């Protein structure tokens, strides 16, 4: 029927204007190519449709959920499993990644809040996206290898392992609203096993993005952090399984600090008595960078660990030393150690996972 109509129109118009025929031909070929390149995803049998979703990246599933209420409802009904979701907070940016392993990241969502006075975009590029019951005004911005947009700069800086051609820029000064909306939305369509929150301590202390719930892994980077603030954070996230502090920890720790109850702890720059930390530590994996200790501390630790009188849960301890080098031969002689073949695990297994 469409072809007949097209033929009739072509014949009629060919008498009137040859350019009109050319336009119609172009229009029909465009229509055909669109039809040919389209795939009726929602008409697939349910099992096959689920297989498609299983093969999709999490970021694509997120985008699919924004297509219509229908796709959102389907994705809510069939929640996608995410093993490890990472919220990264940096100044006025919130990035959400899914991770399959320690060294891979797939960007699911990128939100950047911009003050109203800095808006320099046309209204036609603004979109309202309904996230977790909240309307968030967004800007669709293409970024690519040769793009000079903000996204490229951001992506270069944080060195993403994989990234998509599009991000979302949220035009909203209220970071907490965006954060809450994103978090609610993510939990509507994904079932998350572990939630990692990566924040700069500076932002944290300004009370930015403090309400991410169910955090299991916490990373604090960039600036030194006071122990009292640390305790406050640990109280806020009681279900932590791991914590990583990239910079200096300032102030004394009390023996009943919550940090000693966390399963995996990594302190990059400790600069204090490492034996105090490991003696109070009740978790399984501990890595301390630049700790202060001597040969006798190591000897005492190994002897009590091997005899089982202390550290019942500890599986791994890694401590790098601040100051002079240790006399390992003295320790080995004291322990009467013998040589054993051992395959050393990869370095990241020493850390928080």
């Amino acid at each position, binding site marked *: 029927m469409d072809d007949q109509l097209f033929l009739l129109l072509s014949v009629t118009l060919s008498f009137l204007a040859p350019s009109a025929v050319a336009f119609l031909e172009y229009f029909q070929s465009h229509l055909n190519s669109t039809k040919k390149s*389209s795939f009726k995803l929602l008409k697939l049998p349910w099992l*096959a449709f689920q297989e498609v979703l299983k093969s999709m990246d999490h970021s694509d599933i997120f985008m699919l959920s924004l297509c219509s209420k229908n796709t959102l409802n389907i994705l809510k009904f069939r929640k996608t499993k995410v093993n490890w979701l990472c919220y990264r907070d940096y100044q006025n940016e919130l990035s959400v990644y899914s991770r399959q392993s320690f060294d891979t990241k797939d960007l699911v969502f990128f939100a950047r809040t911009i003050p109203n006075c800095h808006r320099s975009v046309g209204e036609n590029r603004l979109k309202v996206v309904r996230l977790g019951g909240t309307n968030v005004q967004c800007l669709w911005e293409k970024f690519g290898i040769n793009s000079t947009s903000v996204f490229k700069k951001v992506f270069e800086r944080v060195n993403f392992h994989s990234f998509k051609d599009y991000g979302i820029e949220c035009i909203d000064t209220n970071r907490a609203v965006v954060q809450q909306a994103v978090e609610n939305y993510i939990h509507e369509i994904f079932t998350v096993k572990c939630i990692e929150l990566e924040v700069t301590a500076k932002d944290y202390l300004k009370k930015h993005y403090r309400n991410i719930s169910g955090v299991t892994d916490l990373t604090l980077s960039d600036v030194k952090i006071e122990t009292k603030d640390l305790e406050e954070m640990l109280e806020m996230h009681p279900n932590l399984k791991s914590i990583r502090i990239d910079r200096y920890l300032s102030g004394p720790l009390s023996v009943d600090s919550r940090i000693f109850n966390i399963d995996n702890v990594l302190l990059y720059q400790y600069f204090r008595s490492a034996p105090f930390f490991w003696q109070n530590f009740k978790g399984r994996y501990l890595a301390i960078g630049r700790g202060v200790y001597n040969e006798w501390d190591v000897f005492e630790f190994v002897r009590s660990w091997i005899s089982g009188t202390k550290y019942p849960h500890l599986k791994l301890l890694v401590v790098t030393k601040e100051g002079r080098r240790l006399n390992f031969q003295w320790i080995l002689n004291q322990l009467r150690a013998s040589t054993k073949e051992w395959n050393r695990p990869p370095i990241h297994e020493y850390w928080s996972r």
Partner: protein
Amino acid sequence: MSVENAPVVDVDEAAIPVEKKMYYRFESNDKKEFRVSELAIQQSETLNRLVEAMGYTSEDVENKPAIAIENIDGKTLKLVFQWCEHHKGEAIPVDDGSVPKIVEIPEFDAKLMDIDNGLLFKLIWAADYLNIVQLLNVSCKKVANMAQGKTPAQLRRVYLLPSDEEDEAAKRAAQEAQDPRAREVEEEFEERKRQGGNSFF
């Protein structure tokens, strides 16, 4: 092995293989006949169980009519059997639960699936119907790859996803088609409401 050289033999077009292996005959809904090796059939759980239940001997295969697969056309079935012949003897993969699912599309499969999306849709439908796990995996991966790096607007075009307004219109149309009286009742109700009546009855 290229798609063209895959060892599927269409009875109408090519010679029957002289090997002594067991070959089953299948017929599509447009009456095209295919001969498929016993080993290739094992890739499809549905067909494998079917031929086991039938208990055909070599003579039965020749003398009895071809097994009809009434839901799938010849073009699609040809692709399915080409795939099965190429992958015959391979282990059927088990879902390890990883998300996103790690699926690599081999070169042969990529060439086989270099088809228009209408046929790809039919191929997935057939793989699902015949329960060919690996074919379903690779074809669904191809569909999933179409979404990579797309915005919602682009996804709507690629996957022909109706907008909210179109969904609403379709829902209304479906309701009206299902119950023509409903519209009349609604109009009557609106009319009475305008006239100031409190109750419909």
